[in-house]
Protein backbone atom coordinates (compact mmCIF):
# COMPACT_ATOMS: atom_id res chain seq x y z
CA UNK A 1 0.00 0.00 0.00
CA UNK A 2 2.74 2.36 0.97
CA UNK A 3 4.56 1.58 -2.23
CA UNK A 4 1.45 2.35 -4.19
CA UNK A 5 1.16 5.74 -2.54
CA UNK A 6 4.78 6.51 -3.29
CA UNK A 7 4.19 5.62 -6.89
CA UNK A 8 1.18 7.92 -6.96
CA UNK A 9 3.41 10.72 -5.75
CA UNK A 10 5.76 10.10 -8.59
CA UNK A 11 3.07 10.02 -11.21
CA UNK A 12 2.25 13.58 -10.30
CA UNK A 13 5.52 14.76 -11.81
CA UNK A 14 6.02 12.85 -15.03
CA UNK A 15 9.61 12.98 -16.26
CA UNK A 16 11.59 10.68 -18.49
CA UNK A 17 15.04 9.13 -18.91
CA UNK A 18 18.07 11.23 -19.82
CA UNK A 19 16.92 14.50 -21.31
CA UNK A 20 18.63 16.59 -23.97
CA UNK A 21 19.00 19.61 -21.69
CA UNK A 22 20.96 17.53 -19.19
CA UNK A 23 23.66 16.64 -21.65
CA UNK A 24 27.04 18.24 -21.15
CA UNK A 25 28.86 19.99 -23.96
CA UNK A 26 32.07 18.15 -23.18
CA UNK A 27 31.65 14.69 -24.77
CA UNK A 28 34.26 13.09 -22.51
CA UNK A 29 32.55 14.28 -19.33
CA UNK A 30 29.18 13.35 -20.77
CA UNK A 31 30.35 9.85 -21.49
CA UNK A 32 31.62 9.51 -17.93
CA UNK A 33 28.31 10.84 -16.67
CA UNK A 34 26.40 8.27 -18.71
CA UNK A 35 28.63 5.47 -17.48
CA UNK A 36 28.15 6.55 -13.88
CA UNK A 37 24.42 6.92 -14.14
CA UNK A 38 24.12 3.50 -15.75
CA UNK A 39 25.55 2.04 -12.55
CA UNK A 40 23.48 4.07 -10.10
CA UNK A 41 20.23 2.54 -9.00
CA UNK A 42 17.15 4.69 -8.96
CA UNK A 43 15.97 4.97 -5.37
CA UNK A 44 12.25 5.11 -6.01
CA UNK A 45 11.89 2.70 -8.89
CA UNK A 46 12.02 -1.04 -8.52
CA UNK A 47 15.28 -1.98 -10.16
CA UNK A 48 16.40 0.50 -12.75
CA UNK A 49 19.46 2.64 -13.27
CA UNK A 50 18.83 6.38 -13.07
CA UNK A 51 20.08 6.59 -16.64
CA UNK A 52 16.89 5.07 -17.96
CA UNK A 53 14.51 6.03 -15.18
CA UNK A 54 11.55 8.33 -15.49
CA UNK A 55 11.50 9.37 -11.86
CA UNK A 56 12.06 12.96 -10.82
CA UNK A 57 14.70 12.09 -8.26
CA UNK A 58 16.57 10.18 -10.95
CA UNK A 59 16.70 13.27 -13.09
CA UNK A 60 17.93 15.34 -10.16
CA UNK A 61 20.66 12.82 -9.52
CA UNK A 62 21.68 12.79 -13.17
CA UNK A 63 22.02 16.56 -13.05
CA UNK A 64 24.01 16.43 -9.84
CA UNK A 65 26.37 13.83 -11.26
CA UNK A 66 27.07 16.14 -14.19
CA UNK A 67 27.53 19.17 -11.97
CA UNK A 68 30.05 17.34 -9.86
CA UNK A 69 31.94 16.10 -12.89
CA UNK A 70 32.08 19.62 -14.29
CA UNK A 71 33.35 20.79 -10.90
CA UNK A 72 36.23 18.36 -11.30
CA UNK A 73 35.21 15.36 -9.20
CA UNK A 74 36.60 11.95 -10.05
CA UNK A 75 34.14 9.14 -10.75
CA UNK A 76 34.85 7.71 -7.33
CA UNK A 77 34.12 11.03 -5.65
CA UNK A 78 30.79 11.19 -7.43
CA UNK A 79 29.89 7.70 -6.25
CA UNK A 80 30.99 8.60 -2.71
CA UNK A 81 28.80 11.68 -2.80
CA UNK A 82 25.78 9.56 -3.68
CA UNK A 83 26.59 6.81 -1.18
CA UNK A 84 26.87 9.37 1.61
CA UNK A 85 23.26 10.39 1.01
CA UNK A 86 21.59 7.21 -0.21
CA UNK A 87 23.82 4.39 1.02
CA UNK A 88 25.41 1.49 -0.83
CA UNK A 89 21.97 0.59 -2.11
CA UNK A 90 22.35 2.96 -5.04
CA UNK A 91 25.42 1.20 -6.39
CA UNK A 92 24.68 -1.52 -8.91
CA UNK A 93 28.33 -2.40 -8.63
CA UNK A 94 28.64 -3.47 -4.99
CA UNK A 95 31.73 -2.00 -3.34
CA UNK A 96 34.55 -4.26 -2.16
CA UNK A 97 34.17 -4.35 1.61
CA UNK A 98 33.73 -6.94 4.36
CA UNK A 99 30.03 -7.44 3.79
CA UNK A 100 30.55 -8.12 0.10
CA UNK A 101 33.74 -10.17 0.21
CA UNK A 102 31.64 -13.30 0.00
CA UNK A 103 29.75 -11.96 -2.99
CA UNK A 104 32.84 -11.18 -5.02
CA UNK A 105 34.79 -14.27 -4.06
CA UNK A 106 31.78 -16.61 -4.23
CA UNK A 107 31.63 -17.33 -7.96
CA UNK A 108 35.33 -18.01 -8.21
CA UNK A 109 35.29 -20.16 -5.09
CA UNK A 110 32.47 -22.18 -6.64
CA UNK A 111 34.47 -22.53 -9.83
CA UNK A 112 37.59 -23.62 -7.93
CA UNK A 113 35.65 -26.24 -5.95
CA UNK A 114 34.07 -27.40 -9.17
CA UNK A 115 37.47 -27.83 -10.77
CA UNK A 116 38.67 -29.87 -7.84
CA UNK A 117 35.61 -32.08 -8.17
CA UNK A 118 36.23 -32.45 -11.90
CA UNK A 119 39.88 -33.39 -11.39
CA UNK A 120 38.92 -35.98 -8.81
CA UNK A 121 36.34 -37.39 -11.21
CA UNK A 122 38.76 -37.45 -14.10
CA UNK A 123 41.37 -39.14 -11.95
CA UNK A 124 38.98 -41.78 -10.70
CA UNK A 125 37.51 -42.51 -14.07
CA UNK A 126 40.94 -42.76 -15.57
CA UNK A 127 42.33 -45.06 -12.89
CA UNK A 128 40.94 -48.21 -14.38
CA UNK A 129 40.88 -47.35 -18.04
CA UNK A 130 44.54 -46.59 -18.28
CA UNK A 131 46.16 -50.04 -17.95
CA UNK A 132 44.62 -51.82 -20.87
CA UNK A 133 41.44 -52.03 -22.83
CA UNK A 134 39.33 -55.11 -22.60
CA UNK A 135 39.08 -57.17 -25.72
CA UNK A 136 35.61 -55.91 -26.38
CA UNK A 137 36.58 -52.32 -25.91
CA UNK A 138 39.57 -52.76 -28.17
CA UNK A 139 37.29 -54.12 -30.84
CA UNK A 140 35.00 -51.16 -30.51
CA UNK A 141 37.90 -48.78 -30.64
CA UNK A 142 39.13 -50.41 -33.79
CA UNK A 143 35.72 -50.11 -35.35
CA UNK A 144 35.61 -46.50 -34.29
CA UNK A 145 38.99 -45.70 -35.75
CA UNK A 146 38.12 -47.47 -38.94
CA UNK A 147 34.93 -45.52 -39.21
CA UNK A 148 36.59 -42.22 -38.59
CA UNK A 149 39.45 -42.59 -41.00
Amino acid at each position, binding site marked *: MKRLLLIL*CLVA*TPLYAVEPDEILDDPVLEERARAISADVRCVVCQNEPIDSSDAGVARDLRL*IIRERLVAGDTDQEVFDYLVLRYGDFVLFNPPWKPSTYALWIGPFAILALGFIAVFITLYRKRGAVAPSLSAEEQKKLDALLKDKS
Partner: protein
Amino acid sequence: MQRLLFALPLLLAVIIGGFAVWGLQGGRDPSDIPSALISNPVPQFDMGALEGAGVPGLKTEDLKGQGLTLVNVFASWCGPCRAEHPILTRMVEEQNLRVVAINYKDKPEDAVEWLDELGNPYERIGYDYTGRGGIEWGVTGVPETFIVNDDGVVVHRFAGPIVGDGKRRFQEAVDAALGGS
Protein backbone atom coordinates in the same frame (compact mmCIF):
# COMPACT_ATOMS: atom_id res chain seq x y z
CA MET B 1 32.22 -38.48 3.07
CA GLN B 2 30.54 -39.41 -0.16
CA ARG B 3 27.15 -39.49 1.52
CA LEU B 4 27.83 -36.01 2.77
CA LEU B 5 28.54 -34.87 -0.76
CA PHE B 6 25.22 -36.22 -1.97
CA ALA B 7 23.44 -34.43 0.88
CA LEU B 8 25.06 -31.13 -0.05
CA PRO B 9 22.33 -30.03 -2.48
CA LEU B 10 19.73 -30.68 0.20
CA LEU B 11 21.71 -28.65 2.70
CA LEU B 12 22.05 -25.72 0.33
CA ALA B 13 18.36 -25.85 -0.52
CA VAL B 14 17.48 -25.77 3.18
CA ILE B 15 19.68 -22.72 3.70
CA ILE B 16 18.19 -20.87 0.73
CA GLY B 17 14.72 -21.89 1.88
CA GLY B 18 15.46 -20.44 5.32
CA PHE B 19 16.34 -17.09 3.82
CA ALA B 20 13.25 -17.22 1.62
CA VAL B 21 11.05 -17.76 4.71
CA TRP B 22 12.77 -14.86 6.39
CA GLY B 23 12.15 -12.73 3.30
CA LEU B 24 8.43 -13.40 3.47
CA GLN B 25 7.92 -12.40 7.08
CA GLY B 26 5.29 -9.78 7.61
CA GLY B 27 6.31 -6.16 7.85
CA ARG B 28 9.32 -6.49 5.60
CA ASP B 29 9.10 -4.16 2.64
CA PRO B 30 11.67 -5.15 0.01
CA SER B 31 11.54 -1.75 -1.64
CA ASP B 32 12.16 0.11 1.62
CA ILE B 33 15.68 1.53 1.66
CA PRO B 34 17.22 2.39 5.01
CA SER B 35 18.38 5.98 5.15
CA ALA B 36 22.13 6.54 5.00
CA LEU B 37 21.70 9.45 7.39
CA ILE B 38 20.75 7.48 10.48
CA SER B 39 23.13 8.19 13.38
CA ASN B 40 24.79 10.93 11.38
CA PRO B 41 24.53 14.67 11.91
CA VAL B 42 22.02 16.40 9.69
CA PRO B 43 23.52 17.38 6.35
CA GLN B 44 24.71 20.90 5.59
CA PHE B 45 21.91 22.83 3.95
CA ASP B 46 20.35 26.25 3.95
CA MET B 47 16.89 26.68 2.50
CA GLY B 48 15.10 29.97 2.10
CA ALA B 49 11.66 30.64 3.52
CA LEU B 50 8.48 29.65 1.73
CA GLU B 51 7.17 32.98 0.55
CA GLY B 52 3.83 33.86 2.08
CA ALA B 53 3.85 31.16 4.72
CA GLY B 54 4.88 33.55 7.47
CA VAL B 55 7.54 31.31 9.01
CA PRO B 56 11.32 31.47 8.51
CA GLY B 57 13.42 29.16 6.32
CA LEU B 58 15.41 26.14 7.47
CA LYS B 59 19.12 25.44 7.77
CA THR B 60 21.40 22.97 9.52
CA GLU B 61 21.89 25.08 12.64
CA ASP B 62 18.14 25.24 13.26
CA LEU B 63 18.19 21.57 14.14
CA LYS B 64 20.88 21.66 16.84
CA GLY B 65 20.19 22.12 20.52
CA GLN B 66 16.49 22.57 19.97
CA GLY B 67 15.31 19.33 21.51
CA LEU B 68 13.73 16.59 19.48
CA THR B 69 12.61 17.84 16.08
CA LEU B 70 10.52 16.24 13.36
CA VAL B 71 11.47 17.21 9.81
CA ASN B 72 8.53 16.62 7.50
CA VAL B 73 9.09 16.65 3.75
CA PHE B 74 5.86 17.57 1.96
CA ALA B 75 4.45 18.93 -1.27
CA SER B 76 1.02 20.22 -2.17
CA TRP B 77 0.87 17.98 -5.25
CA CYS B 78 1.27 14.86 -3.15
CA GLY B 79 -1.97 13.12 -2.18
CA PRO B 80 -0.64 11.08 0.75
CA CYS B 81 0.81 14.29 2.28
CA ARG B 82 -2.72 15.59 2.48
CA ALA B 83 -3.78 12.36 4.16
CA GLU B 84 -1.08 12.46 6.81
CA HIS B 85 -1.20 16.19 7.51
CA PRO B 86 -4.06 16.29 10.05
CA ILE B 87 -2.67 13.23 11.83
CA LEU B 88 0.80 14.72 12.05
CA THR B 89 -0.65 18.07 13.18
CA ARG B 90 -2.66 16.46 15.97
CA MET B 91 0.32 14.37 17.07
CA VAL B 92 2.53 17.42 17.28
CA GLU B 93 -0.01 19.45 19.23
CA GLU B 94 -0.99 16.72 21.66
CA GLN B 95 2.57 15.70 22.43
CA ASN B 96 4.04 19.15 22.26
CA LEU B 97 6.63 18.20 19.63
CA ARG B 98 8.64 20.53 17.49
CA VAL B 99 8.06 20.08 13.79
CA VAL B 100 9.70 21.80 10.84
CA ALA B 101 9.21 21.15 7.15
CA ILE B 102 10.87 20.96 3.79
CA ASN B 103 8.55 21.97 0.99
CA TYR B 104 9.68 19.78 -1.87
CA LYS B 105 9.47 20.76 -5.53
CA ASP B 106 6.41 22.88 -5.13
CA LYS B 107 5.08 26.20 -6.40
CA PRO B 108 5.04 28.71 -3.51
CA GLU B 109 1.44 29.79 -4.13
CA ASP B 110 0.22 26.18 -4.23
CA ALA B 111 2.06 25.35 -1.01
CA VAL B 112 0.75 28.42 0.79
CA GLU B 113 -2.80 27.73 -0.32
CA TRP B 114 -2.39 24.12 0.86
CA LEU B 115 -1.19 25.29 4.30
CA ASP B 116 -3.97 27.87 4.53
CA GLU B 117 -6.50 25.15 3.90
CA LEU B 118 -5.04 22.45 6.15
CA GLY B 119 -3.28 24.52 8.80
CA ASN B 120 0.41 25.14 9.43
CA PRO B 121 1.96 23.25 12.36
CA TYR B 122 5.51 23.97 11.18
CA GLU B 123 7.86 26.21 13.10
CA ARG B 124 10.07 26.66 10.08
CA ILE B 125 9.65 25.74 6.43
CA GLY B 126 12.61 25.34 4.10
CA TYR B 127 11.63 25.96 0.51
CA ASP B 128 13.23 23.45 -1.84
CA TYR B 129 12.05 24.13 -5.36
CA THR B 130 14.85 22.28 -7.14
CA GLY B 131 14.81 19.24 -4.90
CA ARG B 132 18.51 19.73 -4.14
CA GLY B 133 17.92 20.07 -0.43
CA GLY B 134 15.93 16.87 -0.62
CA ILE B 135 18.90 15.09 -2.14
CA GLU B 136 21.15 16.29 0.69
CA TRP B 137 18.69 14.55 2.99
CA GLY B 138 18.57 11.45 0.81
CA VAL B 139 14.87 11.97 0.17
CA THR B 140 13.41 9.37 -2.20
CA GLY B 141 9.82 10.54 -2.37
CA VAL B 142 7.27 12.54 -0.44
CA PRO B 143 6.07 12.40 2.22
CA GLU B 144 9.05 11.52 4.36
CA THR B 145 9.62 12.42 7.97
CA PHE B 146 12.94 12.50 9.81
CA ILE B 147 13.43 12.51 13.56
CA VAL B 148 16.39 14.64 14.66
CA ASN B 149 17.60 14.65 18.26
CA ASP B 150 18.92 17.48 20.40
CA ASP B 151 22.48 17.01 19.12
CA GLY B 152 21.34 17.47 15.57
CA VAL B 153 21.75 13.80 14.77
CA VAL B 154 19.24 12.00 12.55
CA VAL B 155 17.82 9.10 14.54
CA HIS B 156 15.01 7.89 12.30
CA ARG B 157 13.61 8.24 8.85
CA PHE B 158 10.01 7.38 8.07
CA ALA B 159 9.18 6.99 4.38
CA GLY B 160 5.56 7.28 3.33
CA PRO B 161 2.51 8.81 4.96
CA ILE B 162 1.97 8.66 8.70
CA VAL B 163 -1.45 7.08 8.52
CA GLY B 164 -3.02 3.87 9.80
CA ASP B 165 -0.40 1.37 10.89
CA GLY B 166 2.26 3.84 9.83
CA LYS B 167 1.10 6.16 12.56
CA ARG B 168 1.69 3.50 15.21
CA ARG B 169 5.15 2.71 13.89
CA PHE B 170 6.06 6.37 13.67
CA GLN B 171 4.85 6.97 17.23
CA GLU B 172 7.06 4.11 18.42
CA ALA B 173 10.02 5.71 16.73
CA VAL B 174 9.25 9.06 18.33
CA ASP B 175 8.90 7.47 21.76
CA ALA B 176 12.17 5.61 21.31
CA ALA B 177 13.91 8.82 20.31
CA LEU B 178 12.46 10.69 23.28
CA GLY B 179 13.53 7.95 25.64
CA GLY B 180 17.01 7.95 24.22
CA SER B 181 17.73 11.66 24.43
